[in-house]
């Protein structure tokens, strides 16, 4: 079962794990991206996530299907949150499960890396000093 969604309320990571779990799967893995308190040396107060929604949905779905084909992992779900997020809140969650650990870990890594490269999603960081900035992958390190 492969599923992805853009959501506007809190992501329930336990539900995602439950969704990919199955009696034949010996390994389940989870990635959670959360809003960090500091980015490039600045104190972050809040992040606004926005997306080109129909394209982001299509792109994330395509990524999960690529991971499924490439690694044979057919239990794979992803949710990305949009809207205003505070420090520590989960912005993205991906869960994968497989009879064996290596494909599950490979599919998880592929999915989060491709999502960060390709999904048309943007974040506007608001800082403690009142400034705000559209963050791009090219600027500094990313979570």
């Amino acid at each position, binding site marked *: 079962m492969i599923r992805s969604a853009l959501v506007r309320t809190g992501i329930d990571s336990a539900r995602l794990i439950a969704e990919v779990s199955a009696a034949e799967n010996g390994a389940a893995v989870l990635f959670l*991206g959360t809003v960090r308190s500091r980015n490039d040396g600045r104190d972050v107060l809040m992040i606004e996530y926005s997306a080109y929604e129909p*394209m982001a949905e299509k*792109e994330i779905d395509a990524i999960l299907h690529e991971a499924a084909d490439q690694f044979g992992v057919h239990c794979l779900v992803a949710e990305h949150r949009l809207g205003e997020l505070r420090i520590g809140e989960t912005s*993205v969650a991906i869960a994968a499960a497989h009879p064996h650990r290596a494909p599950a870990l490979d599919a998880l890594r592929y999915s989060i890396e491709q*999502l960060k490269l390709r*999904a*048309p*999603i943007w974040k506007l960081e608001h800082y403690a000093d009142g400034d705000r900035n559209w963050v791009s*992958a*090219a600027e500094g390190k990313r979570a």
Partner: protein
Amino acid sequence: MTVTLRFFASYAESLGVPSIELDLAEGSTIDDVMKAISAMPGSGKLPPHPLVAVNHSYAKNSHVLLDGDEVALIPPVAGG
């Protein structure tokens, strides 16, 4: 023919609008759209070759457009 242009995030802020309708000659490409955008106020803040999507898929600048296409300029993404 007419295409819809969509702008997001920093590009929408630079251009001051989220979306416009654009009339183009048949056979126009994304390159032609970029020329039209370069005449818009605020377009100087955009990079020379932004990523572009047509109907929700990334597309090359030589992509030939059809009536009704949705053309989106995609700022550097930052999901996750």
